[in-house]
């Protein structure tokens, strides 16, 4: 869907490339997260997709066509764009903001209005209450939602998101992440998502591209594989010493194969099937027990330390991913 | 009027009639220097008096918010009265028209709006939590004002002094019309005698003085700005 082919970028007046020989492919309907330390070229890479920044060498293909096949403005109207600064137009109402691209594309008023209302619903803002407000009348989190709605407005198959939840507090951010993953299950956009936060990358990504300084691709894989088999010192230190625990957060206890708990489960610790294995493990250790009961589909399963160890041993081949497991 | 562009060209290239260097040399000590000194005196005394009035008024306006709109209304009206008109009104008031006093009064009147506005803006820019912390440490209101609020507000107040000073140096030239002295004397005499050298001398010196004052105060503002930077981050 989006293919980077040996893409390099050197800014004018500098001789060092900030993105170097970058090649990878984002599959249709997937979220590809670009992650890495600050200044490693994530934003630059993302902005070359919709040609806000022109490529120095190499090419980017969209649906097999080079992204230079049409004018920059035309291209950008077909690609959703959401950024950390949000950039809502302060002098336009929320409805006008969301309707920007449909308006540029010449949709009629009725269609724009119903699309705006639909999107406000999608991002959890009541249309009647919010459509005629101005950005200054919204909280930071609400503005981020409108930013995402605006990017989705013309139903573009591709979305570019640069730290789209970066400007809000951690709790709001988690809520927005969960909500966006829920929306993505329906809309199945092809998304390039930039963040510097490895936890956000693990949570949001179907694939993760880890970049290091100078815009060099260090590893491109599923979150599961990056956590279980980091292929360099750089990657393993970037994902952190707790990568085993991070892997546990990719799976929910409900998804584990648990042995049925036969007989009496009275007095045993009960754990909700929606918890991540990491949280379940934490509860288990905290309770002082060695086993807990997980109720799933009316049957009781037995969660043990051994079961968790088995999961870590056998999970690397499974196509589990952050997007689906945490939804 | 003949073609002004041609005249300009001729003046710029011919050069000799526009500035009479000999005259400048001969009259420097007698005419030019006193005019410059007079101008410096007029401007600095006016800014000083204006500050003495504006600081307390600004501090009070920041405290008692209700007083602020009427204060800006009155000073705003003063500010928008054209200077020649204000000079004219002032010399018509018996008892005011003594020496340079109408000029000084007018210059003070022009500075008030800018200075008061920046004092209030400066005090407003002090974060409430900073004042709260000061209070929590047991500073009295007066100590908070002098040790916390005013130092933090100082860069913005100095920015106001800059604008006021540049404005005043310009307007002070007009004061020469009502015998206020200063560099305007050269300009008015030059107009009267159709002698460009005098006009240019007055204009260049007044402009240079404004720019120098602006740069000096800018340096002061920069020097004071570390406070502001700490405040912002």
């Amino acid at each position: 869907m989006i293919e980077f082919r040996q893409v390099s970028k050197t800014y004018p007046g500098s001789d060092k490339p900030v993105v170097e020989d970058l090649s990878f492919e984002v599959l249709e309907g997937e979220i590809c997260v670009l992650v890495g330390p600050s200044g490693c070229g994530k934003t630059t890479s993302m902005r070359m997709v919709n040609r806000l920044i022109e490529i120095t060498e190499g090419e980017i293909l969209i649906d097999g066509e080079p992204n230079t096949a049409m004018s920059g403005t035309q291209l950008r109207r077909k690609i959703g764009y959401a950024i950390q600064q949000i950039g809502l137009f302060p002098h336009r109402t929320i409805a006008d903001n969301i309707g920007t691209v449909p308006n540029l594309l010449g949709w009629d008023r009725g269609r724009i209005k119903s699309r705006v209302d639909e999107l406000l619903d999608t991002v959890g803002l009541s249309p009647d209450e919010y459509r005629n407000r101005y950005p200054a009348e919204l909280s930071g989190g609400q503005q981020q939602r409108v930013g995402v709605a605006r990017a989705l407005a013309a139903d573009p198959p591709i979305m570019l998101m640069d730290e789209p939840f970066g400007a809000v507090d951690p709790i709001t951010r988690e809520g927005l992440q969960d909500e966006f993953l829920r929306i993505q299950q329906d809309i199945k956009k092809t998304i390039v998502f930039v963040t510097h936060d490895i936890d956000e990358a693990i949570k949001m990504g179907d694939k993760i591209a880890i970049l290091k300084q100078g815009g060099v691709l260090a590893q491109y894989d599923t979150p599961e594989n990056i956590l279980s088999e980091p292929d360099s010192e750089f990657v393993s230190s970037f994902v952190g010493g707790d990568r085993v625990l991070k892997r546990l957060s990719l799976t929910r206890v409900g998804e584990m194969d648990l042995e049925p708990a036969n007989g009496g489960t009275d007095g045993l610790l009960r754990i909700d099937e929606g918890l991540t294995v990491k949280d379940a493990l934490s509860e288990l250790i905290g309770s002082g027990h060695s086993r807990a009961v997980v109720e799933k589909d009316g049957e009781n399963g037995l969660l043990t330390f051994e079961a968790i160890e088995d999961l870590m041993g056998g999970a690397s081949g499974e196509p589990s991913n952050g997007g689906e497991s945490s939804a | 009027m003949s073609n002004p562009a041609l005249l300009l060209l001729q003046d710029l290239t011919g050069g000799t009639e526009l500035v009479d260097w000999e005259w400048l040399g001969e009259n420097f000590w007698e005419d030019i220097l006193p005019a410059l000194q007079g101008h410096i005196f007029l401007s600095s005394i006016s800014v000083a008096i204006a500050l003495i009035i504006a600081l307390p008024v600004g501090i009070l306006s920041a405290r008692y918010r209700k007083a602020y709109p009427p204060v800006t209304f009155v000073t705003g009206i003063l500010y928008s009265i054209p200077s020649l008109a204000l000079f004219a009104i002032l010399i018509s008031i018996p008892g005011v028209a003594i020496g340079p006093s109408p000029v000084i009064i007018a210059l003070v009147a022009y500075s008030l709006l800018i200075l008061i506005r920046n004092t209030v803006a400066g005090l407003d820019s002090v974060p409430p939590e900073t004042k709260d912390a000061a209070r929590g440490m047991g500073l009295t209101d007066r100590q908070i004002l002098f040790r916390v609020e005013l130092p933090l507000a100082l860069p913005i107040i100095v920015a106001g002094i800059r604008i006021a000073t540049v404005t005043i140096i310009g307007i002070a030239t007009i004061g020469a019309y009502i015998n206020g002295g200063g560099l305007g004397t050269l300009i008015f005499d030059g107009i009267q005698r159709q002698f460009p050298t005098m006009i240019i001398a007055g204009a260049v010196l007044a402009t240079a003085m404004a720019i120098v004052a602006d740069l000096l105060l800018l340096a002061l503002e920069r020097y004071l700005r570390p406070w502001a930077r700490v405040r912002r981050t």
Partner: protein
Amino acid sequence: MLYKILEVYARPDFPEKLRQHVLLSLVALLVAIAIAMPVALMIRNSRLGALIAINIGNIGRAVPSLAILALALPFFGIGFGSALVALTALAIPPILINASTGLREVDKGVIDAARGMGLSGGQILARIQLPIAAPVIFAGIRTSAVQTVASATLATFIGGGGLGDLIVEGYSRRGPEILLAGALAVAILAIITEIGFGVLERAFTPKGLKIAQKRRK
């Protein structure tokens, strides 16, 4: 005294002086806008351009208005046209400074979002930058207008006419009523300009920006 002042306003030459004053100010302002706005638009994306414009503007502001009028004399001679040129030169800096800072201070994120959504350069200017900068631009025009009305009083010194004629006449002939009549007329004209352009400024401030300003306070 008041009666004497009113008598001056009844003089046959008063409407002519008023007309000259308004004409001088208005034409100078319009020409200044016509010069400053295109320049501001041209340099809106250039840091160097803005730096140069703002510095020229600042130096321009440091030249006393009396000096600019007097300097027009050796170049353009005596009269209305000369005063007009000088007043135009005076009217440019505030508009240029406000327009170029106003356009440049539009939030970078807003511009980036607009570009990212596929607005063209012209669309960004017309739909985003100009409306958002409008209040700052109008504030510059207001400053310039009030200042031009005030400086037009000085046109009298170079034979440019206007209400300053009355002040000079009253001063040189020791006619306090003429002096005051001129001064009051100019003062009222300046205050009307200030208030009038203030109304205009508010009218051109988009509602969303007013709300944002209020929130910030």
